[in-house]
């Protein structure tokens, strides 16, 4: 141990450690700028291209970052790398064929895309959705919300350097995908929601398996929290980094867990209940300061609430039809085709041409795992929509990235992109 100079018994390393400047980066830069200008030196900004093929950008997001040392001065997202023209494609398909196309926009929350589109078409065509279908929708939506949050949790903690949560998260997501496979035959992009209800009733055994899941999920979430909430690295990386207040978030159009983390309890499931969300009791987790830790904590808390909703929906699942009996919109049951001429005609018309929707426009907004997911549909009386537009929360929320990270370290930018949870399939559509 070297003890040259300074207080006796204090190592050079320790003294160096005590001299580390812990004041906010912006202040440090300003101070350094003053010193430099006194001796005639100046600093240049470094422009760094981040992405589009970088594992920490959660897809093909490209960020043009201007750095002053390690501090982000300016940031511009460049998007469009996975633009596939889904909105244009939808204009060339009959209404029921649009559902699988829009499901592929935000590829982690496919049930929500289908729900927003079906909601808009149901408003236009004035189709009533039976109570059982509404409950089945809620069950699948909330399962999907958990699955989406699990992927978010896994990948974003992976960005902070921990691998195990990713594996645990995918393990639980597997249970959800198994349930989706049971009810619809598909694990992703299930096409389970149809205009007027859902395509099929849940099969025998689904309820039992779902109960097993709702029993295990809160425990597993406790385990994630036990790993993360007392982890020094996670806390250092998340707590107090890149906060943004609710007012600024609202002016940027940000909704969902990001807004709730800043203390504004806006949730469309409570504020404007759709699909009988008003039948269920659940809480809306909110944060206080809106930093990365609050964003993390809000989403994790939402997992517990989603489980509660699923349990209630399963307990109160009403008997009855799972799709509207309006034969002009929904396919007739298979057994009727053998006996009823009318059913055969309806089946033929629906499969070949699709149903027609009267002239008009509708905007249906629902609460997706990332915020307000709105679907605008304009019908022109034909069997194809004249315009389908998705107000995707990822696309709008991405604008908040720059005000969030300006003036903080580049390492915090990585954490913020992760906590923002943009899905590039939804951003680019």
């Amino acid at each position, binding site marked *: 141990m070297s003890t040259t100079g300074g207080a006796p018994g204090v190592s050079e390393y320790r003294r160096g450690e005590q001299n580390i400047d812990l004041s906010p980066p912006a202040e440090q830069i300003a101070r350094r700028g003053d010193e430099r200008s006194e001796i005639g030196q100046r600093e240049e900004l470094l422009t760094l291209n981040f992405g589009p093929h970088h594992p920490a950008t959660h897809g093909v997001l490209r960020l043009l970052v201007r750095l002053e040392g390690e501090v982000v001065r300016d940031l511009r997202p460049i*998007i*469009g790398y996975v*633009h596939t*023209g889904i*909105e*244009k*494609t939808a*204009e*060339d398909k009959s209404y029921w064929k649009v559902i699988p196309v829009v499901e592929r926009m935000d590829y982690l929350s496919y049930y929500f895309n289908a729900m927003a589109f079906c909601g808009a078409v149901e*408003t*236009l065509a*004035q189709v009533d959705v039976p109570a059982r279908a509404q409950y089945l929708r809620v069950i699948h939506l909330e399962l999907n919300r958990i699955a989406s949050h699990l992927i978010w949790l896994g990948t974003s903690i992976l960005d902070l350097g921990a691998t195990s949560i990713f594996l645990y998260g995918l393990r639980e997501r597997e249970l959800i995908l198994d349930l989706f496979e049971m009810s619809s035959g598909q694990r992703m992009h299930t096409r389970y929601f149809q205009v007027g209800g859902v395509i099929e009733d849940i099969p025998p055994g689904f309820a039992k398996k779902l109960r097993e899941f709702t029993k295990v999920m809160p425990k597993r979430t406790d385990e994630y929290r036990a790993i993360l909430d007392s982890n020094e690295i996670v806390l250092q990386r998340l707590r107090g980094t890149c906060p943004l207040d609710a*007012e*600024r978030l*609202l*002016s*940027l*159009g*940000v909704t969902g867990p990001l807004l709730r983390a800043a203390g504004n309890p*806006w949730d469309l499931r409570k*504020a*404007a209940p759709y699909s009988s969300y008003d039948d269920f009791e659940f809480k809306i987790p909110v944060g206080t300061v809106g930093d990365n830790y609050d964003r993390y904590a809000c989403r994790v808390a939402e997992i517990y609430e989603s489980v509660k909703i699923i349990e209630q929906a399963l307990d109160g699942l009403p008997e009855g039809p799972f799709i509207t009996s309006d034969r002009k919109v929904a396919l007739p049951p298979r057994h009727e085709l053998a006996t009823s001429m009318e059913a055969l005609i309806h089946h033929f018309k629906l499969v070949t041409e699709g149903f027609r929707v009267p002239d*008009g*426009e*509708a*905007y249906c*907004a629902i609460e997706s795992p990332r915020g*307000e997911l*709105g679907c*605008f549909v*304009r019908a022109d009386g034909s069997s194809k929509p*004249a*315009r389908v*537009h998705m*107000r995707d929360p990822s*696309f*709008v929320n*991405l*604008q908040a990235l720059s005000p969030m990270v300006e003036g903080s370290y580049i390492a915090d930018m990585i954490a913020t992109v992760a906590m923002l949870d943009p899905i590039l399939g939804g951003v*680019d*559509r």
Partner: protein
Amino acid sequence: MPDATGLELIGKELGKAVLDKTFFRERATLDIDPTAVRAVLSQLREKGFAFLASVHGVDYYPHEPRLGVIYELLDMRRVDRITVRVRLPTDAPEIDSVTPDGDYGAGWPTANHQEREVYDMFGVVFRGHPDPRRILMPEDYEGHPQRRDFPVGGEPVLFTRDEAQWLEARE
């Protein structure tokens, strides 16, 4: 949603700028004069519709004027939505941008990306937009693909095997 009477009242208060009012399927829509868009939106903001949920474009082909820009406003305290719609012709469609010039109180920073998307897809030019570029399509792209007269499948795909041919066709 404001009900039909509420819509009438709002329309009356906004005065001449309102060209038409529609109440369809519980959705209130104001058709307004394109030159008054900033004024109308800020008046509605004072009435409580402070959250701009969405800005999107529509092509009303074959009706004239063909293009439409739709602003979905939301009042978070009363949980109320109102839609503002402007119609623009396809030759030189221009409208004032509602994205701010710096100040948060006066503008709608959320419209930034969304107006760029409307420009990209429909060719509507937003006057005074801070960053008026394409957003989803490549910057050297020609045409506005969401217009109804833009052909589906009209996009050539560049493969290595037909690169020479493709470049020739471009010149």
